[in-house]
């Protein structure tokens, strides 16, 4: 077993004291991000990229990349644990992926079973985390071996499929989603051209030659954008926080949750692997599935434990599953994984099939750290859940200005130019305006991250074919990928024409 030896090496990396510390910090902040309504995993991860970059500045590049990605991934899956806390105690989901949990979770809290609901949510998340990690270990090598056979034409088509999937599922209007994707791709062309070295759209502004910094754009759009929204639309949090009570679930409740957790984990994992679907859809699907499978569907919505166990397992499994296309193919399937990918590229670590050959310490170190991180999260979320529930009471008065200050610090510390700080504020305003009017931001970031790679692969393929665009249709794998991408766009369109409603991913 090759994968097993690599995994053991990965554990050696992940168990180094500083990496343990980074994993702990990541899951701790992630849980807090999950608990706080208004700060999603996307803005949490974006906000922390520059902070981790400055924290790891003393390490050598490969180690710094490993430590940073361990922390950032910790925030991502940690938020999946934390999101359930407010759903259950306050009837206010901390994340969009925990919306379904409010249906039964809050009912359970009203009946005085909040502790059991929280415990099952944590246990379900833990089991799902393990399931998706084991699948990740098993699938990583074979998948990246397949992807290694891809040429530029296949890669171009694969990325197009990734964009089609995310744009097709994001937001209410597909036109708007596509506009955001194309806008992101266009922004990525600013700066020196990678192939020829020609300056594009720079107008002799020296800051623009390096292109728009991904970090500045992501922090601006997500972190500042959400702060501006929170300031303008004052959200009232006057709901009563339910008492937690006994933390351990009863035997009957535990027994009742086994099935939903197992099914939620598997379903969530597969939905997570699909580009564009993500944790929110996974939790919805698993809740609907449990209701259909249940012998007592009338209990759903009235405080049944299966209604908490299934979606909470599914959203965590999906976040693990989403790591697979990111690590093995270099294709992020959601906004958050796009941000993680941007962070890796910042450290000169290119996610994709070569990642496991070139930087095995980064890839396997991350996977091993996710095992450790999940154990930490279980400990954090079971006995310490009462302390985390207190975070809900953090006054926004202090929180929001502090987020602005952290964003400015982070961007300035990494970029060391005032130009980027102004850019940050500008993108914050843009992010607020666009998101407020149903223009989804995830495709924009995805376009920005994938832009240079799409263009390079397109031009390499076209150079090999002497400028003949038919090359993308002549290679069989490329053709199949393009057909799938085409169907992904056309099928929902036809369904809409037939008057069927389609599920969209509001927030990824």
């Amino acid at each position, binding site marked *: 077993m090759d994968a097993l030896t690599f995994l053991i090496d990965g554990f050696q990396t992940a168990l180094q004291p500083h990496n343990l510390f980074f994993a702990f910090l990541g899951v701790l902040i992630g849980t807090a991000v999950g608990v706080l309504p208004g700060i999603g995993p996307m803005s949490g991860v974006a906000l922390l990229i520059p902070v981790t970059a*400055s*924290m790891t*500045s*003393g390490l050598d590049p490969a180690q710094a990349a490993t430590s940073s990605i361990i922390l950032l991934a910790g925030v991502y899956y940690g938020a999946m644990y934390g999101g359930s806390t407010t759903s259950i105690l306050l009837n206010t989901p901390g994340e969009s992926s925990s919306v379904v949990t409010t249906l039964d979770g809050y009912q359970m809290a009203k009946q005085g079973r909040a502790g059991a609901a929280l415990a099952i949510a944590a246990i379900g998340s833990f089991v799902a985390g393990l399931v998706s990690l084991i699948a990740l270990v098993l699938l990583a090598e074979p998948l990246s071996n397949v992807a290694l056979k891809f040429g530029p034409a296949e890669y171009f088509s694969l990325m197009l499929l990734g964009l089609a999937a995310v744009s097709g599922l994001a937001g*209410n*209007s597909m*036109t*708007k989603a*596509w*506009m955001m994707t*194309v*806008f992101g*791709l*266009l922004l990525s*062309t600013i700066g020196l*051209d990678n*192939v*020829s070295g*020609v300056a*594009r*759209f720079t107008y002799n502004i020296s800051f623009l030659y390096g292109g728009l910094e991904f970090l500045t754009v992501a922090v601006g759009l997500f972190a500042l954008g959400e702060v*501006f929204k929170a*300031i*303008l*639309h*004052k959200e009232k949090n006057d709901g009563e926080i339910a008492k937690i009570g006994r933390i351990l679930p009863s035997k009957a409740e535990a027994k009742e949750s086994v099935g939903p957790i197992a099914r939620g984990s598997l379903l969530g994992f597969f939905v997570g692997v699909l580009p564009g679907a993500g944790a929110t859809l996974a939790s919805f699907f698993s809740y609907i599935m449990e209701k259909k499978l249940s012998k007592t569907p009338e209990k759903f919505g009235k405080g049944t434990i299966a209604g908490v166990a299934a979606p909470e397992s599914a959203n965590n499994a999906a976040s693990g599953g989403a790591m697979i296309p990111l690590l093995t193919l270099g294709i992020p399937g959601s906004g958050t994984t796009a941000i993680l990918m941007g962070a890796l590229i910042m450290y000169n670590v290119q996610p994709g099939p070569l990642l496991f050959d070139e930087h095995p310490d980064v890839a396997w170190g991350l996977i091993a750290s996710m095992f450790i991180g999940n154990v930490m999260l279980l400990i954090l979320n079971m006995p310490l859940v009462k302390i985390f529930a207190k975070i809900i009471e953090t*006054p*926004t*008065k*202090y929180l*929001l*200005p*502090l987020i*602005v*200050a952290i964003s*400015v*610090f982070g961007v*300035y*510390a990494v970029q*060391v130019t*005032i130009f980027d*700080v*102004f850019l*940050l*504020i500008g993108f914050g*305003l843009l992010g607020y*305006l*666009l998101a407020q*009017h*149903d*223009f989804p931001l995830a495709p924009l970031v995805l376009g920005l991250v994938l832009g240079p790679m799409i*263009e390079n692969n*397109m*031009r390499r393929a*076209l*150079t090999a*074919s*002497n*400028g003949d665009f038919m090359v993308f249709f002549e290679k069989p794998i490329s053709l199949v990928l393009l057909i799938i991408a085409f169907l992904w766009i056309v099928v929902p369109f036809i369904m809409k024409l037939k008057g069927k409603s389609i599920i969209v991913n509001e927030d990824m």
Partner: protein
Amino acid sequence: MSKTFDRIAAITFLAVGALFMVESLRISKSAYGSAVGPNVFPFLLGLILVLLSIKLLFETARYAHSESEKQPLQYKKFFIILLAAVFYAALLETVGYVITTFVFLVIGFQAMEKGGLWKSVLFAACFSLGVYGLYVKLLQGTLPSWPIWLQ
């Protein structure tokens, strides 16, 4: 969905796409050793953005007139903090990190909710001095230090 905003956005993005198309014509067409120059990709994208914007313009014509109830926005708070952030960015390098961050945070805290001035001052001082101390002294990073006339 706001009809006006979407129309303005569609026209703006149409202009952006057109601008990219026109400007990409000025980029040199050929690059040594490759059949496709650096101008092709942005030109095609600009074209797609223009077409999508036109599609959105047509879609706005079909929007139903449903005036959703508007909640009052907190413009005053927002503009105070936005203005403070702009000044923060503009003065960061000349006045230094600690002072600008401190002032920005005090204004920000007070703009969010008046009162508790001493608490705000304490928090702002802790954050600005703490970040500066941790990052510059401990991690050897670079941040603009104190202004020259204070040194």
